[in-house]
C-alpha cells in the first residue's frame, strides 16, 4: 500500500487551544509526524475544558475537546523554565520540516524560538505563526479569543434575525477557518521547498482569513457603500429558504424537550411547485401569490407559515426524507446526537473514529473529512496523553541516550 502523503514530514507543533491544533490535525490526517511540545505548568487550555467522560473530569488527559483535535499526534512535555528544555526544543526543530505556533506575537522570539533563530538551526525550515491579529500592524499585540473573532471579522454584524441585534456563529468559526488556511499554507510552502530547497516564514492572521471567506458582505460595501441587512435564515435568491420547526422529538435533557427543525431551500420556481405538491398543497405551485421568486419574496411570511404548518406535523428526519424524495434541498438541522447515532449516511461512510484511549476508553470522535483512492488514510492513534511520547521522541528522533534523558528529567526539563 502506498504511504500517506505527508509520511516522513515532521511538524514541531508549539500550538495550543483550537486554531493551531486544528491546523496540525489536518497534517496528521495526511500522515505527518506531528509532535506537540506541551508543558504541564501551563497545559493546553483544551485539556482543562469539558466534555469529560461521563461528566467527571479525570485529569489532563480526559477532555473530549483535546482528544478530538489532537488525534494521531505525539506529545512531548517540556518545562522551558528549566535548563535543557530549550535545547531539546531546538534539537527537535533541527530535525523537523515545519514549525507551527499560535502564541501571542513575540512569544516564540522571547523563548529563543523565533524564525531567525530557528533558521540558523535549520536553514530551510518552514515556520507559520497563526495569530488573531497577525505579526504587524498597530493591534498586533491585542489579545484575541476565539469567540471574539466572530464579531471582529464582520460575521456577527451580518448574522441575525430580521430586525434583531447582531448574533454569533454559535462557535469560534474563525479558529478552524484559520487553522485550515494555515494547513493549506504549510502544504504550499512544502511544495515550494520540495522544488526549490527554500523554506520561509508565514504570517497568518485569523481576522484576515475570516474576511477572506466573507466576500458577499464586504463586496456589497465596496460596490455600493451599503451595510447588508440581517435577514435571518432567508436568502435573496430563494424562497422558501428557512429553518422550520418540526414535531418535538421525545428526548428530554434536564427536563427540557429538545425541539427539532428542518432546513429547506427551494432552489427555483420548479422546486417550489414540487414542494407545494409534497406538502399536500399542489394548488399553491401555480398560485400567482407564490409562482415566481418575486411573488414568494413578497409574500414570504405567509409562505413560511404554510410550510411550517406542514413541518409541525412531521419529525425532522421524515420531513427531510419526504422533501428529498420530491427533489427539494432539505436536511435535518443536525445536532450531535443525530450525527452520532441517527445519520445513516455517516455510519455507512465510516466517518467516525473509535479508538481505545487509556484514560477515557473508546469514545466516538470525528474523523477525516476526505478520502483518497491511492493513499487510503485513517486516524492512526487517539490523542496523546500529556508527555506520552517524551522518551520515545528523545530517543528515536533526537538520538539521546538514556543517561542524557535521565539528566534532563532530573533537572525538571522533562515533565
Amino acid at each position, binding site marked *: 500500500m502506498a504511504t*500517506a*502523503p505527508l509520511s*516522513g514530514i515532521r511538524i514541531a507543533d508549539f500550538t495550543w487551544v483550537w486554531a493551531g491544533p486544528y491546523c496540525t490535525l489536518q497534517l496528521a490526517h495526511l500522515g505527518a509526524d506531528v509532535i506537540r511540545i506541551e508543558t504541564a505548568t501551563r497545559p493546553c487550555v483544551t485539556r482543562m475544558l*469539558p466534555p469529560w467522560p461521563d461528566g467527571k473530569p479525570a485529569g489532563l488527559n480526559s477532555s473530549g*475537546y483535546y482528544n*478530538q483535535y489532537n488525534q494521531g499526534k505525539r506529545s512531548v512535555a517540556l518545562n522551558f523554565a528549566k535548563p535543557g528544555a530549550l535545547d531539546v526544543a531546538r534539537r527537535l526543530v533541527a530535525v523537523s520540516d515545519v514549525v507551527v505556533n499560535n502564541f501571542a506575537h513575540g512569544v516564540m522570539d522571547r523563548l529563543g524560538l523565533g524564525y531567525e533563530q530557528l533558521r540558523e538551526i535549520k536553514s530551510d525550515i518552514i515556520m507559520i505563526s497563526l495569530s488573531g491579529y*497577525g505579526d504587524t*500592524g498597530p*493591534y498586533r499585540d491585542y489579545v484575541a479569543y476565539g*469567540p*471574539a473573532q466572530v464579531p*471582529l471579522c464582520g460575521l*456577527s*454584524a451580518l*448574522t441575525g434575525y430580521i430586525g434583531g441585534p447582531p*448574533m454569533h*456563529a*454559535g*462557535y469560534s468559526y474563525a479558529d478552524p*477557518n484559520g487553522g485550515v*488556511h494555515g494547513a493549506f*499554507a504549510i502544504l504550499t*510552502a512544502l*511544495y515550494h521547498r*520540495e*522544488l526549490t530547497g527554500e523554506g520561509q516564514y508565514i504570517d*497568518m492572521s485569523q481576522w484576515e482569513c475570516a474576511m*477572506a471567506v466573507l466576500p*458577499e458582505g464586504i463586496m*456589497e*460595501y*465596496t460596490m*455600493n457603500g451599503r451595510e*447588508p441587512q440581517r435577514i*435571518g435564515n432567508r436568502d435573496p435568491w430563494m424562497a422558501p*429558504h428557512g*429553518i422550520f420547526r418540526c414535531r418535538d422529538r421525545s*428526548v428530554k435533557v434536564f427536563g*427540557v424537550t*429538545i*425541539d427539532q*427543525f428542518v*432546513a*429547506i*431551500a427551494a432552489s427555483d420556481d420548479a422546486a417550489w411547485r414540487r414542494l407545494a405538491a409534497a406538502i399536500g398543497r399542489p394548488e399553491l405551485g401555480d398560485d400567482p401569490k407564490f409562482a415566481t421568486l418575486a411573488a414568494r419574496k413578497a409574500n414570504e411570511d405567509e409562505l413560511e407559515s404554510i410550510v411550517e404548518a406542514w413541518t409541525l406535523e412531521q419529525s425532522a428526519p421524515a420531513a427531510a426524507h419526504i422533501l*428529498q424524495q420530491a427533489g427539494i*434541498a432539505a*436536511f435535518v*438541522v*443536525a445536532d*450531535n446526537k443525530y*450525527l452520532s447515532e441517527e445519520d445513516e*449516511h455517516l455510519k455507512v461512510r465510516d466517518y467516525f473514529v473509535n479508538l481505545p484511549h487509556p484514560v477515557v476508553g473508546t*469514545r*466516538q470522535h470525528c474523523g*477525516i473529512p*476526505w*478520502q483518497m483512492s*491511492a*493513499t487510503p488514510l485513517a486516524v492512526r492513534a487517539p490523542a496523546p496523553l500529556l508527555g506520552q511520547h517524551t522518551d520515545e521522541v528523545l530517543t528515536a528522533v533526537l538520538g539521546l541516550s538514556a543517561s542524557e534523558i535521565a539528566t534532563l528529567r532530573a533537572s525538571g526539563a522533562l515533565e
Partner: protein
Amino acid sequence: MAGALAGLKVVEIGELVSAPYAAKLMADMGAEVIKVERPGAGDAARRRGPFPAGRPDPEKSGLFLYLNANKYGVTLDIAQPEGFELLEALAAGADVLIHNIWPPDMDRVGLSFERLARRNSRLVMTSIAPFGLRGPHRNWRAEELTVWASGGVCVLNGAGPNHPELPPLKTYGHPAGFQAAAHAAVAAMGAVFARLRGGRGQHVEVSAQECLVSQNEMVFEYWPYMGVIATRLGRKPLQPMETMRCKDGWIYICCVEEHQWRNFVALMGNPEWANEEIFADRLKRGENWEALEIFLREWVAQQSVLDLYRRAQERRVPFAPVSTMGDLLNSEHIRERGFFVEIAHPLAGTYKYPGAPLKYGATPWQIRMPAPTLGQHNEEIFGQRLGLASERLEQLKARGVI
C-alpha cells in the same frame, strides 16, 4: 518573486463557492487555473450578488469576481461528447482537476477519475460533494443552508435559552461552501505533494458535511462523552461573553479569565455592584447572568465602541468590536497590513476586494488578473493551447459546445 504554486496547472469545474474557492486559494499562490463554465449560463455565482447598484449582471457579481480572479475562463458543455473530449484534453495537461459537480450530474455526463486518468495517470482529481460520493445521501439535493444544517454547527446558533421560540440561525454567507473549499484545498495539496515524492495521481473525495462536523468545537463530543445534546438553548457556563450595544454600535464583551474580569471592573471604575457575592467568579457570573446583564448593558450603552475596545485591550481584556463592513474597510490595523486590494475588471469596474489571508515571506500572494468574462479565454485555451483551428471553434460554438 513567484508564488509557491507557480507552474502547477489546475482545471476547475466549479459552481458557487466550494470548488471555486479551493481553486482560488491555489491561483492566488501562483497556480495556473483554467475555470470551466457552462456555455450560456456560466457559474451560478454570476447570478448571485452583490451587484453594483443592486442590478444583476453576470459580469458584475461581487461573489463571482472575488472567487475567480487569477483564473482563465472557458465555456464547455461537458454533457456533449465533443465537450467531454475537450475536458479530457484539458485534464491531460493538468496536475489537478477540482470540481463540485453534483454526483447525479457526474453520472449523467460520465465524469469519473478512471476516465480522466486514462490520459493522465498523474492527475489529482478532487471531487467536492455535499455528502461525498458514496452513501445513502449521495444524491440528495443540497443548497448552502441545508449543508450548513447537516454539519451540526447551525443548531448551535440562535437567540439562546430565553428565546426558545426563535429557530436555529444560519451564519451569514456561504460558510459551508468556504469550509468545504479550504479542506478540499488541503486534501488536494496533500495528494499533489505525495505525487512530487514519487506517488501517482489519485482521486480525492471531500464531503462538505464531514468538513463541518469536523469543526464542531467541543460540542460533538458532548454526546459520546456525556450523553448531552448541544443546542442553541444551552446556557453559557462562563460570563460575560455577549454582544452589547454601545452609543455608536455594538461590542463583544469577553472576560474568560478572572484577571480579565478584574481589569474590566477597574476599567468601569470599580462600581459597587461588581463586588456582589453573586458575581464573585466566572461560574457565578454565568449562573447569575440575568442580574449581571442589566448592570453591564446599562454601563456599556454609554460607551463608544472603538474607545471601549482600545481601553479594554490596553488592560489585556479581549473585547472586540462587532465590525461593520465599513469598520473593516476603515480599520487602521487592516489598512496598515494592506489586506484589501483593488482589482480593475473591464466590465464591472474597479473595487476593493478581500486580499491575502496569509503573508508568505518568500512566495507572495498575488493578483495577476481579474476574473474572466464568460468564455473570455476560449480562443487562447482551445485555439492556442489545444491547437483547435478557428473554424472548428466556430463549429463548436454554433453547436453550443463552447
